[in-house]
């Protein structure tokens, strides 16, 4: 399987069937993207225009002078079967159908067309991706469907039945520092399905973490097995769409009536070590945690940066997420008292930064000192932007930039997972808004896992702990 799929990910040349001159069409955007970024030959296939973006067009894939490995189809669905014939004749290895309106419409005609397409492709040994999907985003090779996707690449691999959700993962994930190895939107999964793609990503050395959006599964037994295989190698985070759709299971036993589709999916995820995300937000949070934090070895958490009532609330939220906030050990307290007798005596976890005014220790010095203690496995630190008063630019480093240095030191020195929390509320103050956005960008750039609330950070960390525990036991 790996070898066959390599033609999709490492084509020597790409043709865009239905390449278009109108800038807002998929056949244009896609062609423009690969033309500008893909290293091999790129051919526009179009029967009317003579050239697109300065490139000579061909009326058919068959007319292209050199070999064509990969074809992207933006042709109307009534031209799909002819395109399959052309591609087979040309010896194309893989055909991606952006083209839609097949079996997903529920029409028998559409389903029959799919069956015919598949039969022709199978007979020739050509693989089909889709139909009804966005296909491939492989920034390292210069392949992308979205104009706004980053070209910088990373190690997050994605499979998604929905192209829209895949696009959201890429774009929103990018602002949180996620970078991708390969993203595959596979739509109707006529030929290549979720299990094929999962197996490929599980063994893909460029992919260190797998995310996914799944609605239906073609072969559940195989998919479950592939998940177990993948999870033993790298974290897998899935979001299941259509969870609330009622099962049609006519049960005549207690077990039958209790084991609905959701319950079984959840059980399957637990069994196979898969993080079962319940929303897009949860999926992204989990991916950020896995991509940007080292393995967590336990649930003992140190929380910093909170103040007063907020700190109390955050302690509750973290406990609810399944983390523990151990009190500061006497030995550590002793060290704090040595440095500042007044303050060291009453510092607690969560560390309340607001009551440290006048102390000889800065809040981040305190956090760093406590975080070193082996009784803490993970750290969540709240960060807020500091706005210079009167618009004067200070030459001294700001409080938050010093804090970031210290936090980065905790992360690198101790090898402990550190999550940052930057509140994402939009302040009615342009300076603060700008400072907040700037701080967020800086934290992401510095490699931190950044979350908008403590409870979301805590939940993501708990997922990290659970996964690595599962993997250790599964070994």
């Amino acid at each position, binding site marked *: 399987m790996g070898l066959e799929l390599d033609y999709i990910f490492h084509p020597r040349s790409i043709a865009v069937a239905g390449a278009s001159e109108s800038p807002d069409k998929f056949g244009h955007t896609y062609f423009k993207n690969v033309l500008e970024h893909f290293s091999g030959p790129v051919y526009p296939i179009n029967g009317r225009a003579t050239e697109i973006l300065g490139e000579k067009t061909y009326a058919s894939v068959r007319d292209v002078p050199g070999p064509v490995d990969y074809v992207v189809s933006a042709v109307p669905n009534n031209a799909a079967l002819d395109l399959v014939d052309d591609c087979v004749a040309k010896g194309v290895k893989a055909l991606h159908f952006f083209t839609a309106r097949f079996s997903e419409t529920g029409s028998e005609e559409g389903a029959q067309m799919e069956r015919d397409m598949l039969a022709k492709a199978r007979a020739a040994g050509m693989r089909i991706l889709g139909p009804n999907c966005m296909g491939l985003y492989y920034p390292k090779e210069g392949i992308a469907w979205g104009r706004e996707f980053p070209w910088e690449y990373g190690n997050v691999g994605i499979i998604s039945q929905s192209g829209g959700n895949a696009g959201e993962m890429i774009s929103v994930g990018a602002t949180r520092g996620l970078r991708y190895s390969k993203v595959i939107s596979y739509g109707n999964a006529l030929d290549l399905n979720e299990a094929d793609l999962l197996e490929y990503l599980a063994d893909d050395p460029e992919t260190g973490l797998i995310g996914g959006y799944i609605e*239906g599964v073609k072969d559940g*037994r195989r998919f479950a097995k592939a998940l177990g295989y993948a999870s033993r190698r790298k974290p897998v985070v899935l979001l299941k769409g259509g969870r609330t759709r009622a099962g049609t299971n006519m049960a005549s036993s207690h077990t039958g009536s*209790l084991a609905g589709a959701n319950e079984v999916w959840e*059980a399957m995820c*637990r069994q196979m070590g898969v993080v079962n995300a319940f929303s897009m937000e949860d999926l992204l949070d989990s991916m950020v945690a896995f991509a940007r934090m080292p393995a967590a070895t336990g649930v003992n958490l140190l929380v910093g940066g909170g103040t007063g009532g907020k700190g109390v609330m955050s302690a509750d939220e973290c406990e609810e997420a399944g983390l523990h906030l151990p009190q500061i050990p006497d030995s550590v307290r002793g060290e704090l008292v040595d440095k500042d007798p007044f303050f060291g005596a009453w510092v607690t976890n969560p560390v309340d930064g607001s009551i440290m005014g006048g102390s000889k220790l800065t809040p981040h010095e305190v956090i760093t000192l406590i975080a070193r203690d082996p009784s803490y496995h993970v750290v969540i630190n709240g960060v807020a932007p500091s706005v210079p008063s009167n618009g004067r630019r200070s030459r001294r480093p700001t409080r938050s930039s010093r804090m970031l240095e210290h936090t980065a030191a905790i992360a690198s020195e101790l090898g402990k997972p550190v999550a940052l929390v930057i509140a994402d509320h939009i302040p009615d103050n342009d300076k603060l808004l700008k400072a907040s956005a700037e701080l967020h960008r800086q934290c992401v750039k510095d490699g931190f896992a950044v979350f908008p609330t403590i409870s979301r950070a805590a939940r993501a960390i708990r997922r990290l702990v659970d996964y690595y525990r599962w993997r250790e036991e599964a070994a």
Partner: protein
Amino acid sequence: MTTAGIVEAARRAGRTLLSEVESKQLLEEAGIPVVPTRLATSRAEAVRIAQEIGLPAVLKVVSPDITHKSDVGGVKVGLETVGQVRSAYDSIMSSSRAAAPTASIEGVSVQSMAEPGVEVIVGATRDPQFGHVVMFGLGGVLVEMLRDVSMRLVPVEPRDARAMIREIKGLPLLQGYRQYAPCDLDSLEQAILGLSRFLEEHPEVRELDLNPVLCYPQGLVAVDARVVLEETSP
């Protein structure tokens, strides 16, 4: 009769629901302890079986057409004497016939009365996407209300079986609570694993309930069993 024989007989009779006696035989073959249960087709046979397996006994009506046996007066428990077994047989037959005149009644199952223990359910169903699923939970009549259950796909591995037992909220009840002694969790794990192996070998099973299974400080026993077959052999 062997498992294959029981399935075959049910198929010939056009039944997908196996009787309690048949279901228990199947599970006994899978290595899951069940309360000794035999079918009596006459009053005299009921008495003889009761004497053989030992009093006190429980008698239940056996009919493919009666799902809720106690609703038709088809269950008599705590029968201490031969005389009580005799009159229980008569009473079950007459009240079941009166309550369900069209039901075909094969006879009465005679079983020994199990010692009280912590009631759990061990079951299985076939998910349309993922195939056989094994379920465990706190059992008895309250299982569907409490929904305190855990599940895994077949094949269930030992670590999964352990996790299933430890996942339910009612775990403390199994670990010893008030008048309940701690249950033998090893035998529970073995029952879950035995059921998983049984399902791997029997794709024709669509649904299965062992409910209740009584858990003891040592061992366990399935008191009631219900197996539903697929319409056609897969």
